[in-house]
């Protein structure tokens, strides 16, 4: 490889890798996809299960799924989405407070290995908002679910 060629390789590769993170799906529409229906992701790269324990100190949720016990850290980067599609309402952004024991969630880990290990920081968490009378949820004026 000539010096000039090497310069091109290093220079252009630098601009390529410094500006382009790993390809990922369009997060913007992900919010509208119900639990378990994300194409190429649900059940392959995610865990779908019920929340059994919540630790607000460590911001960790945990539960059991067919594959075994799991836990997930909810970090400041983690997106939380309220799946209200069964109520025929628009899905929305949520917060850690919206994660409650007994609710069905889908967790996608930041690292794909997280699913295998059943633990790790979550990239996103979808939580199913049940109908009125279940798990103490009710609709507020703004449409945001509150306990």
């Amino acid at each position: 490889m000539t010096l000039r060629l090497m310069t091109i390789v290093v220079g252009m590769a630098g601009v390529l890798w410094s500006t382009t993170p790993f390809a990922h799906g369009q997060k913007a529409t992900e919010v509208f996809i119900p639990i378990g229906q994300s194409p190429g992701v649900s059940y392959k790269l995610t865990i779908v299960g019920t929340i059994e324990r919540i630790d607000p100190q460590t911001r960790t949720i945990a539960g059991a799924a067919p594959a075994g016990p799991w836990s997930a850290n909810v970090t400041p980067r983690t997106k939380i989405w309220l799946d209200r599609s069964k109520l025929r309402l628009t899905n929305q952004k949520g917060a850690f407070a919206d994660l409650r024991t007994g609710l069905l969630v889908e967790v996608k880990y930041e690292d794909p290995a997280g699913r295998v290990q059943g633990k790790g920081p979550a990239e996103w968490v979808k939580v199913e908002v049940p109908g009125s009378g279940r798990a103490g949820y009710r609709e507020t004026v703004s449409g945001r679910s509150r306990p």
Partner: protein
Amino acid sequence: MSPPPPDPRAKLIARGQAIFFNETFNGNGRTCGTCHPTENNFVLDPAIIATLPSTDPLFVAEFNPDLKENFENPRLMREFGLILENLDGFDDLANTFVMRGVPHVLALTTSVNSPQGPRTGWSGDGAPGDGALRSFAVGAVIQHFTKTLNRIPGVDFRLPTEPELDALEAFMLSLGRQQDLSLPLTLKGTVPQRGQEIFLDNRLGKCNLCHVNAGATANFGGGSLGNANFNTGVENLPDQPADLSRQRVPPDDGFGIPGNGTFNTPPLVEAADTGPFFHNNAVETIEGAVAFYDGEAFNNSPSGRALAGTDPNGVGIRLDATQVVAVAAFLRVLNALENIRQAIDLLEASLAGDSGRLKALLRRAVRETEDSVQVLEGGGLHPEAVAHLRQASRLTDKAARSWLFKRKLTRDAIREQEKARAFLVGSSPAAPRTATGGRS
């Protein structure tokens, strides 16, 4: 004798085609084909938009009260072929959106893959879920097919099923070229020949670094990098048509949320007849698109500066008007060759196919031929080839109408296509069958 039954792959592609053009997913009436019309090389431009009736679902924002605000901008759609997308989220529909052109879906086999994962759409992140081409339709339905801005699955639309996604992916991957060219070709025209030299010259045109073999993959000398994203400064172009309209057009930050300013590299073989160009339809002609790389917006961009950093004279890309036209002429000839290849494929398929599809195949062959005429004439290139292409078009049209001489007329049309091709390119061991010799 009846034709042999189609193989499973062909059946899957046919099912995908039917879904692409007919399936509304219980939404607002749009299909994938609404924005990717086959009769216009799967792109939307103001010319084809002007031919559509006001009731076409493309214009749903003009007649559906639920979609009147914050779903499309009808003026920008009709004037510049721009579509509204909420790529950075749906929290503030009035202010957070981008206006983008519709990319063609040809040669996806050659352009989607990268070592970092699949890249779809103008910024490479157009699909939800795993980001794959197969998942693209899910995001498209949510964004473009909804009956209301509530976007509730099962109410405003239904999401595509897994078998539907499989079929759509198979159909999209079947469109256009299935492999990249192998440049250089033995071109016959003086100007296109020079254009090819400039294109391949890493000290002058430098085009082949990011568009290897006029495709959509990059190679800076250390091996193929697959399809890549770059910030080429298109957003910094002055006097962009949409901005001149005084409509609200927020900056487009490209890949990711928030975006990093990079956009996806499209293949160039199909470029000349799929304009307008760039993610925001900022440039109308292929000559203008090549000239962009000679301008300040590109040369001051991260990619332009990186290119200059590797140049002994500190130059990004500097081309004179004759050189810009030469590169564009080269791209026009590549496009015409691809159209000829496709037209011959369609004509041959009509000879082998069942009578039910015959007329449709011949009509598509006519469209491809008209495209090659338009692409060559637009650059004042190869008038002899254009004459043969016109004759091929006439013969194909006659074949579509004829009962008695369909096969003879079709074979004559193939011969005219081959004669036209012989004026553009010579046979060479370096030139693959996809460029010069027929089917992929």
